[in-house]
C-alpha cells in the first residue's frame, strides 16, 4: 500500500544511496594513501563531512530561532527543533569518528585539543537545548524560550572555538593533524568535497523528514482540538467550522 507521497520519495532516496556509495568508494579507492597514517586517515573525509553537516544544521537552526521570534509562524519553530536534532546527530557522528580515528592513528581515544573540545561542548550545548524543550509544556512558550537559548548557543559557538584555539596555542596538546587544509593533495580535496556534499545531502533529507514530523504533530493537535470541541458542544458553530 504505497501512497503517492511515498512514491515521490523513491528517487531522492535512491540519489542519496548512490551518493553514499560513491562517497565510500571515493574515500576507499580514489583518495591517495596518506604517508603516516595510511588507511585509517580515510576516516577524515567523513569526519570533516560530519562537521560540515553539523554547522549547516545549526546555521539553519539559528535562522529558525530568529525567524520564530519575529514572525511567530510555527513553521520556524519546526525548523528550529528539526535542525538541532539533526545537528546533534551529526555532531555525535563527528565525535565517534574522531575517537575511532584517534585510537589507531595516535594511540589515544581522546585529547583535549581545540577542535575536539569545541565539538564536545557544542554537543552538550545543543543537547541542553533539546532537554530544555522537553521541560516546557506550553508550545508558544517552549518555542520562544528555546529560540532565545538557541540564539545564545549559536553566538557562543565561535567563542568556544576561539577560546579553545587560543588556549591550545598556549598549552599545546599532544597530538593534532597539522591542519588538513594545509597543502592537501588535490585528489584528497576532491574526495573531501564529495564526502561533504554527501553528508550535507543526507542531513537535509533527514531534516526534512523531522520537519514533516513536527508538521504532522501540529496537524494532529488541531484535529484533536476539533474533536474535543465537537464532543464538548456537539452542535456549536465553532466545532463545526473547525472540522
Amino acid at each position, binding site marked *: 500500500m504505497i501512497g503517492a507521497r511515498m512514491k515521490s520519495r523513491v528517487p531522492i532516496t535512491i540519489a542519496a544511496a548512490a551518493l553514499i556509495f560513491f562517497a565510500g568508494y571515493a574515500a576507499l579507492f580514489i583518495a591517495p594513501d596518506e604517508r603516516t597514517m595510511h588507511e585509517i586517515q580515510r576516516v577524515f573525509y567523513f569526519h570533516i563531512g560530519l562537521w560540515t553537516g553539523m554547522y549547516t544544521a545549526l546555521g539553519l537552526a539559528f535562522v529558525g530561532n530568529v525567524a520564530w*521570534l519575529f514572525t511567530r509562524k510555527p513553521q520556524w519553530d519546526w525548523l528550529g527543533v528539526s535542525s538541532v536534532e539533526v545537528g546533534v546527530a551529526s555532531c555525535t557522528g563527528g565525535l565517534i569518528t574522531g575517537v575511532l580515528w584517534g585510537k589507531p592513528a595516535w594511540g589515544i581515544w581522546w585529547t583535549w585539543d581545540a577542535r575536539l573540545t569545541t565539538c564536545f*561542548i557544542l554537543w*552538550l*550545548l545543543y543537547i*541542553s537545548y533539546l*532537554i*530544555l524543550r522537553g*521541560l*516546557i509544556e506550553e508550545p508558544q*512558550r517552549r518555542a*520562544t*524560550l528555546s*529560540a*532565545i*537559548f538557541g*540564539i*545564545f*548557543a549559536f*553566538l*557562543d559557538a565561535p*567563542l*568556544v572555538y*576561539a*577560546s*579553545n584555539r*587560543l*588556549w591550545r596555542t*598556549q598549552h599545546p596538546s599532544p597530538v593534532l593533524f597539522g591542519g588538513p587544509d594545509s597543502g592537501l593533495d588535490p585528489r584528497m580535496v576532491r574526495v573531501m568535497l564529495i564526502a561533504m556534499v554527501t553528508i550535507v545531502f543526507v542531513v537535509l533529507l533527514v531534516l526534512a523528514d523531522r520537519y514533516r514530523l513536527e508538521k504532522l504533530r501540529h496537524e494532529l493537535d488541531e484535529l484533536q482540538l476539533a474533536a474535543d470541541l465537537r464532543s464538548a458542544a456537539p452542535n456549536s458553530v465553532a466545532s463545526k467550522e473547525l472540522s
Partner: protein
Amino acid sequence: MTTARAAAIVLAKELRLEFRARELLTSTIVFALVIVVLFSFAFDPTAGESRRYGPGLLWIAFLFAGSLMLNPSFAREQSNSTLDALRMAPVSPFAILLGKMLANLIFLSFAEAILVPVFAVLYNISLVGVAGQLILVLVLGTLGLVITGTVFSAVASHARLRELLLPLLLLPILAPLLIAAVESTGALFAETPSLDRAWLAFLAGFDIVFLTASWLLSDFLLEE
C-alpha cells in the same frame, strides 16, 4: 522613566529583599567554601599543584555556587507572580533584566570578596601586588556569569526541574568564559605574575556580546 532609573529601582528592591534575610548570600558563600575544602581532600595538592590548579578550582567554585545563586532571581518572581506586576509597569523589559543582573553582580562579588582571601590563605597563594589586576579579572568574569545566568534564570523559571536546568544550560555556554578566566587568574597566581591582555580582551568581548544579545532579546524573554 528611563531605563537606567528603572533598573536602579529594580536593583534597590532586589538588594533590600536580600539583605533582609541574607540567606542567599550566606548559602552561596558556604557552598563555594565547601567546594574549595573538598578539593583539598580529593586532591591533596602540593604547593606547586595548588598554584597550578588553584585558578581552575576557584572559578569552578564560583560557577557552581553562582548558578545555584542565580536560580531564585526569577524563581522567586514566579512563585509570587510578581513578574506580572513588574511587566505592567511602564518600564522596558531590559530595565528589569538589567536591575536583576546588577543585583546578582553585587551578590556574587560580595561572595567572591570573602572567598578569594580565604582561598589564598588555605592554599598559600600570595595576592600581594596582584590584587588590583585580580579584581579586574574577577569583575569581567563575574559579569559574564551574571549576564548569561540572569537571562537563563528567566528561561528556566518557566520550565520543570529548574534547579537542575539552570546549571545545565549555563555551564556549557560559559565554557569559553571559564577558560579565559582561569587563564587570566593563573597568569596572576604564577611565580612571576603577569596580566594576560589577550584573555582579558576575550572576557570583555564575551560580556559585550551577551549583554547585547540580552538587550536585543529582552522583550521576548519577559513576555507573557
